[in-house]
Structure formats: structure tokens, C-alpha cells
């Protein structure tokens, strides 16, 4: 049964139709890359899934139940988690606290008043473990403000991963990251997701990364689904080449 | 000024200089200020307090700390009716608001027999409410045949009286009882004059004589004024010599006439202390301690610029006659003419009864 499924999902801003009747689905453990030219509606589509925007028509079924207009935090708690293109982290908190906050939220322990974080251990060790996995371990006590943009991006992804999502949506996970460790991030992500069976959906412009890491590619143009299939097939498709990869 | 005069004459009993420190009751938190004066600085006597909230706060603390204290200007009847029912160290050297409110009712009954409809305009805070309640109770108690058509309570520190004045214009009462004072009185008068409220309505301001100084040009002739007792520099008759030289020394020192009743109340407060010390000393031959001072204050009586003032036996609250007059700018100074005196006993509750009880069974 699909982790997530959309039926004729449409979003209109006045007369402009940003997303038009998109049917899409993603299976457990599948990694799907979304490609498309700027303005194709990729981000709007993701915003519809994560609840930042509400659909004009059509519905989204997640884990078997329709989402209707469930708020962002509700979807996150149900396992539909996103990370941000521009990293959204808590600047005044340390890296450890950032990740730990996500873990505690996942375990619905936000309102526990009496377990002193100084002595409470589970979330602490889990957070350290996760940070190590993403190469941020030794800087765990630095405040998020003090680390470079690239690392903030990784921290952002780290926080989303900490939610143990059913479906993780990444908005250009490697943008702003130095080219040599773009692959490094994608490798870490893939290793992590091999251990869990959660699905991953990521928007990407770098076709090389899409080809290497995506099980399936979903191409969009002018708000509509162009083609949805394995990377080799989609990347070689004529219109994809012309419209998206810019090769004449 | 009064203390300087006493010290010039050698101080109390001709040998003790009074050292006077002044504090503003409204800047610091009054409970904190009072405790500091009573305990840390340990003054012989604390005299003062205008705001009724402060007086009600300080009263119980004075009793607790056994600190002789004189309230010289606060009018609230709640002080001895409710806050401090069995005072030992707390005294008040001015009469309560019953002098003004009950006095006004008596003026209505005896001097203004043609009044049919009455309205009230009092600031919406304790002093205003206290005055209005007493006035309406007195009207009932003396069953004066007037009907109260309107009672308005504009907020204290109100910037816009236009709607209040319009309402009064519409209900068009013959007589208005008002305890307005300060900026609100000036504000109300300016807007009332503009809208011709006083053309066919006689207002009675129970504590409004200070406006003769603040905005004399806003005071038309023929309005009824009280001064919380006989505390006016000009107008009225039969003033003693204390009154005349108090007014003249006040004018020479401050360059304006003591139109506000507070000046007279201050004189009374300080001299009550001085007289009490002197009486106790003459009686016992030794400088009185707190308890001797308190005993001497009870039942004290002495002459003041506003006539003979006395604290009746068994009470800690001085009583004063009620005094009213019509504003008159014909003379060299704004004064009150056709003044009426009403005896102390008629406008103050007997010693053992609260004001409410007294009015209840007249």
C-alpha cells in the first residue's frame, strides 16, 4: 500500500494554476527525485503535501487516511516530514539541542516538565549518534549560528531524519553545499534510509545526483506531471531533455 | 511655611526646633515609604496624605507599628468607618467628606427650596463615589423633595467631557452636586461653559475653590462653591486674626492666595501636633512620649484660621462646620458671597456611629 498518494491534486492562486491534477504515489522504501524547470510547480507541490498550502481541489492520502487540511505539525507527527531549501535551524540552540528537540517532539514528550535534560539520557545519546552519522558529531555543543551554511543544511536534514519519518521530503538537499561533498550527503542519506524503510522524495536540479540516487524520477512542467518512471527512461525522454535539461 | 514660622518663634515650647522632611506620597509605593519612615528613620510624627487609597493603606500600618500619624486632607469616610475602626495612633485633623456631601444636602433643603431636579457629576473613583453616595443618602435621610434625575461618573483623569455635558444638558437638572477637582474640574468647567450648561442649572462644587487659582477666567459668577469646610481666603465674614495673617503670609511667600483647601488643612495638621505636645507638657511637666502625645491629641481643641477645631472625645476624627458661598468676581479677589455656615454637629456623624448608621436613622 502506498505511503502517500495524491488524486488530481490542484492548486490555484487566482487564475494561475500552479499545480494541475497531479496523480502521484510513493511506496515504502522508495527514493523519488522530482525534477522540472523553475516555476514547474515543484515547490508548490511539496508545500501542498506538507500542509504549508491547502489544495484547491483533489486530496492527499497519507498512511491510508486523507490529509484534508491537517496543519503542518499534525502531518509531521504522523510521519510526513520535510526539510527546507534554505536551512531552518534554531540559531541560539546547540546542534545537539536542535536534534534533541526533534527527537523529543517525535516521542510526544514536549510537555514533560520534570525530566531534566541535563540527566535524561536516551534522547541525548540518540542525538549524538545521529550527529556523528552526518559528520557533525564533534561540533555538537556549538550553537547552530556558529556553523557554515553547508553544515546548517546538513543539520536541517539531520533534524528531519531524527523524526523517523514515514516519508521524508527534501527540498534541494545539496543546494548551497560544496560540490565535492554533495555526494557525501546523498551517500549518508542513502545509507541511513537503507536501514529504515521510509520513503524519500527530493527536489533536485543536478541530474547526475538524480540519476545516481533516485529509484524513480517524477518530472513536472507548468504544474502538470510530464513523466514518471525509472531514471534512465525519464532522463532520456525528449521533452525532459528539451524542457528540463536544456539540451537542444 | 508654617513650620518655619514656628521655628522662627523658637520652635515647640520655645526650645525644640522642628526638623521637617518632605516626601511625595505618590512617587514611591506608599506602604514601603511609610514603613521606612516609621521604622528605619523613626520619626516622632508622620503628617500628611491626600489620596484616600494611600490613607487607607497607611492607616492599618500605623496601628501595627504604633506610629503616631496625622491624616490632614483625605476625606474618605471609610478611614474610621471601615479601615481602622478602633484607632489608637491614627488621627485625622480635617473632617470627612460627610461635611461636604451632607452639607450640600442641607443647603439644598434650607436655602434652595425651589430646586426640583438634581443631578450628580463625580469622578469615577473612590472619592467621587463616596461623596455621591453620602449626598444621595443625605437627600433621602432628610427627605428633601427633589428627584435625582442623573448620576454621571466620568473617569478620573478624563480628557473629554463633551458627552457628559451633553447628557446633562439634555436632562437639564436645576442643581448639580459635584466633588470634581483638579484637571477634571477645569476640563468640565471649560466644556460646560462652552455648551451653556450653567445657564439654567446651578452647579455645587464641594471642593472646587482651587479653580479660582487654576483657571479664574473659567469661573462665572453665581456658582455654588464649598471648600471642604471654611477654608477660603476671601468672602464670608467673622474671620479671626489667625486667618488674616495666614492668608497674608501665604500670599507674601507664594505670590498667590491659598484658594486650595489643602493649605488650611496643612496648617491644622501641624498645629494639632504642636498644641498636643504643649498641652501634654504643661500637664505633665515632661516632654510627652508617643502614648502621652496620643492621649493629648484625643479631645484636643484649638483655634485655627478657619475657626475653632476640635477632635470630639472618644473619636480620632476632627469635625468642621460646612461652609458655602456663591462665586463673585466683583471684588479685587475672587471670593464667595452670601455664604452660609452649617454647624459641625449637623454635618458630622456622632462619635459612636459610622456615617452610614447616622444617615440611616435620622
Amino acid at each position: 500500500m502506498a505511503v502517500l498518494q495524491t488524486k488530481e491534486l490542484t492548486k490555484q492562486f487566482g487564475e494561475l494554476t500552479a499545480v494541475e491534477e497531479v496523480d502521484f504515489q510513493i511506496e515504502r522504501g522508495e527514493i523519488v527525485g522530482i525534477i522540472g524547470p523553475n516555476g514547474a510547480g515543484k515547490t508548490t507541490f511539496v508545500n501542498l503535501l506538507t500542509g504549508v498550502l491547502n489544495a484547491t481541489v483533489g486530496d492527499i492520502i497519507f498512511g491510508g487516511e486523507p490529509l484534508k487540511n491537517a496543519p503542518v505539525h499534525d502531518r509531521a507527527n504522523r510521519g510526513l516530514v520535510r526539510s527546507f531549501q534554505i536551512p531552518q535551524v534554531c540559531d541560539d540552540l546547540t546542534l545537539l539541542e536542535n536534534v534533541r528537540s526533534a527527537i523529543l517532539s517525535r516521542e510526544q514528550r514536549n510537555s514533560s516538565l520534570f525530566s531534566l535534560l541535563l540527566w535524561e539520557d536516551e534522547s541525548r545519546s540518540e542525538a549524538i549518534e545521529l550527529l556523528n552519522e552526518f559528520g557533525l558529531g564533534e561540533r555538537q555543543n556549538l550553537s547552530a549560528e556558529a556553523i557554515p551554511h553547508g553544515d546548517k543544511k546538513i543539520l536541517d536534514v539531520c533534524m528531519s531524519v531524527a523524526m523517523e519519518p514515514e516519508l521524508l521530503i527534501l527540498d534541494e538537499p545539496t543546494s548551497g553545499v560544496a560540490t565535492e561533498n554533495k555526494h557525501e550527503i546523498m551517500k549518508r542519506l542513502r545509507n541511513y534510509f537503507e536501514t529504515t524503510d521510509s520513503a524519500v522524495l527530493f527536489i533536485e536540479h543536478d541530474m547526475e545526483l538524480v540519476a545516481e540516487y533516485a529509484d524513480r524520477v517524477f518530472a513536472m512542467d507548468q504544474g502538470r506531471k510530464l513523466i514518471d518512471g525509472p531514471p534512465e527512461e525519464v532522463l532520456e525522454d525528449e521533452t525532459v531533455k528539451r524542457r528540463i535539461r536544456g539540451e537542444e | 511655611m508654617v513650620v518655619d514660622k514656628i521655628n522662627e518663634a523658637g520652635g515647640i515650647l520655645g526650645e525644640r526646633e522642628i526638623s521637617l522632611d518632605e516626601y511625595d506620597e505618590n512617587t514611591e509605593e506608599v506602604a514601603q515609604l511609610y514603613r521606612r519612615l516609621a521604622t528605619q528613620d523613626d520619626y516622632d510624627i508622620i503628617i500628611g496624605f491626600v489620596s484616600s487609597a494611600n490613607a487607607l493603606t497607611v492607616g492599618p500600618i500605623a496601628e501595627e507599628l504604633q506610629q503616631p500619624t496625622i491624616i490632614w486632607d483625605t476625606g474618605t469616610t471609610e478611614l474610621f468607618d471601615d479601615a481602622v475602626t478602633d484607632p489608637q495612633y491614627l488621627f485625622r485633623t480635617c473632617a470627612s467628606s460627610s461635611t461636604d456631601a451632607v452639607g450640600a444636602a442641607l443647603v439644598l433643603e434650607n436655602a434652595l427650596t425651589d430646586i426640583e431636579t438634581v443631578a450628580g457629576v463625580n469622578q469615577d473613583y473612590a472619592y467621587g463615589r463616596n461623596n455621591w453616595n453620602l449626598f444621595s443618602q443625605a437627600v433621602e435621610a432628610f427627605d428633601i423633595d427633589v428627584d435625582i434625575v442623573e448620576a454621571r461618573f466620568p473617569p478620573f483623569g478624563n480628557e473629554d467631557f463633551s458627552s457628559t455635558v451633553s447628557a446633562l444638558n439634555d436632562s437639564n437638572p436645576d442643581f448639580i452636586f459635584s466633588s470634581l477637582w483638579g484637571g477634571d474640574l477645569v476640563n468640565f468647567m471649560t466644556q460646560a461653559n462652552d455648551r451653556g450648561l450653567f445657564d439654567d442649572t446651578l452647579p455645587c462644587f464641594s471642593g472646587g475653590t482651587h479653580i479660582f487659582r487654576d483657571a479664574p477666567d473659567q469661573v462665572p459668577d453665581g456658582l455654588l462653591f464649598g471648600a471642604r469646610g471654611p477654608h477660603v481666603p476671601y468672602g464670608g465674614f467673622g474671620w479671626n486674626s489667625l486667618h488674616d495673617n495666614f492668608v497674608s503670609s501665604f500670599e507674601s511667600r507664594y505670590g498667590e492666595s491659598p484658594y486650595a483647601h489643602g493649605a488650611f488643612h496643612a496648617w491644622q495638621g501641624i498645629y494639632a501636633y504642636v498644641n498636643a505636645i504643649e498641652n501634654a507638657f504643661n500637664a505633665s511637666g515632661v516632654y510627652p512620649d508617643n502614648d502621652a502625645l496620643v492621649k493629648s491629641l484625643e479631645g484636643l481643641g484649638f483655634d485655627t484660621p478657619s475657626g475653632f477645631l476640635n477632635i470630639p472625645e472618644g473619636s480620632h476624627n476632627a469635625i468642621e462646620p460646612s461652609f458655602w458661598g456663591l462665586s463673585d468676581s466683583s471684588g479685587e479677589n475672587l471670593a464667595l458671597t452670601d455664604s452660609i455656615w452649617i454647624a459641625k454637629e449637623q454635618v458630622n456623624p456622632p462619635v459612636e456611629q459610622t456615617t452610614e448608621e447616622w444617615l440611616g436613622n435620622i
Partner: protein
Amino acid sequence: MVIELITQQIPLVLNALFLASVLFLLGTGLSIIYGMLNFLNLAHAAFLVLGAYVASTVVTQIVGVFGDTLGTSGLFIILVLGLLIIVPFIIAMVGLTMEQTIFKPIYGLEDDYQLLATFGVILMMEDGMKFIWGGQPVTASAPSELLGSISLLGGSTYPLWPIFGTVLTMVIGIVLYYFFEETRLGKITLAMAEDDEIVGVTGINTRLVHLQVYVIGITLAALGGALFIPNASMTSGLALQFVILAFAVLVIGGLGSLKGAIAASLLIGFTRSFGSYYIPQLELAIVFILMAAVMLIKPTGLFGDIKA
């Protein structure tokens, strides 16, 4: 009987319009400065009170200097000129010096800290005024007396000054409306409300525009004070009342919108004038009930578009 009922309402309507005018001047100034310059100045209302104080001094000086040498109409014109030109000019100068020294460092702060810093400023201004003009209430009734009053249908008399003030504010309102819709500076200010970096990039000296808008806001508040004082007295303690009223106009009208400020001032003016006549006990609370109600129904305010 019905006629009498109607005529009774006339003074209330006039009161409401006058109060609305003062609130419009106060609220528009605050709305422009906050909406366009994103500077939240709790002390803005203190400029209205300052305007009233300065107006009282100006009026007493003029009456002192000219006395009745010019006859009533001549004196009245001088007084009005004094109130409409000298007073706003002085307040604008005071406002500018404060802008350079006190407000500039807090532009960069977050809204919370701007609010707190200007809370400190209003305390300073209140005591400053008490220091200069003393604690006693201050009046400046000469202009209103000279203008006199008229007798309305129902026989009650009504001073002309509030009517003069209302008409004047309408004129100012139209001028403002024209300024923002038509003139170049107006359009730049509206653009700056959206995003002042972009405006800056196009070479327009945003700092100069910033100052001009600030001065307009302060002058409007000063005018509000100057129009208010002839008909009432002013004490520095009233600054608080005006702070809350100013924000009520901002909240109800909606951020940075002129139409909103007009609508909100009228709404508050009428509810306050009729409210305090018919339900006097609620005198103070009316404004808050209105504010809370509008916020619950339409958080951006009647005409605002920027979501709170």
C-alpha cells in the same frame, strides 16, 4: 418627541466627529511610521500630548503679545496660524532631534525590543513635560472662546471649535490621500512599506524618504494635540490614554492603510461618544471591547492586508 430625540443626537455626532478627527491624526501618523518604516513607536502618542502643551504656551504667548490690538477675528487668525504652523514646526524639530539621537539606534531592533525601548522613551517624555509645564492641568481656551458657539436646533449651544477642527482634519485627510496616491514621494513610501531594500537598490535615498515620512507622522500627531487643547485641558498623565487609543486605531484600521485609519477613528469616535452617553459605566472599556472584537473577526484589521 421624535424631533427632540434627533436633535439630541446632533451634539453627540459632533463630539464623535471631533474625537474621530483627533484620533485620525494620531492614528494615521502611527500607522504610517509603523506600516511604512516598520518602526513601532509606543511614544508616538506623547507627541500629541507635547503638541497640546506647546500649543497652550503658543496661545498664551500670542494672546499676551497681541492682546486685543487686532480685534477678535485678527487675533483668531493669528492663533490658528500659530496652532497649525508654529506648533507642528516645533514638534517636528523636537521629533527630528529625537529621531537622530534616540530612535535611530533602535530601528534595527526586533519589534519586541522596539516596543520596550519606546516604553522607556514615553516615560522620559511624560516626566520631561511634567518638568517643563508642571503637574497642573494646562488649558488654551482662547481660540475656542474667540470662535464662540452656535445654538443647535434643540436649543443647546455647541462650540464652533470642534466643528472647525473636524473640517480641518477632513481637508488634511484629503491632502494626505492625494499625497499617497498621486505624488512621487507618496508612491515611494508605499513601495517602501512592501520592501525597502528593493527601493534602496533603485537609487532612491531611502534615508531621506524615511525622514520625510517620519516628520509627516509626527506633525500629524502634533496637529491632533493642537486641535484638541482649545476645547479641553491636558495633563501629562493623559499620554497613556492616547497611547492605547492610537494603537486601537492601528489595530482596528489595519496596518499602514489610510482608509483603515479613517474608518477606525470614526468607529472609535462614535462608539466612544455615544457609548459614554448611553452606557456611561463602560466608558473606558468600550475601546478594548471594540479592539478585541475586530481582532477576533478580522486579524489584519478592517483594511489592512499585512497579517498580524
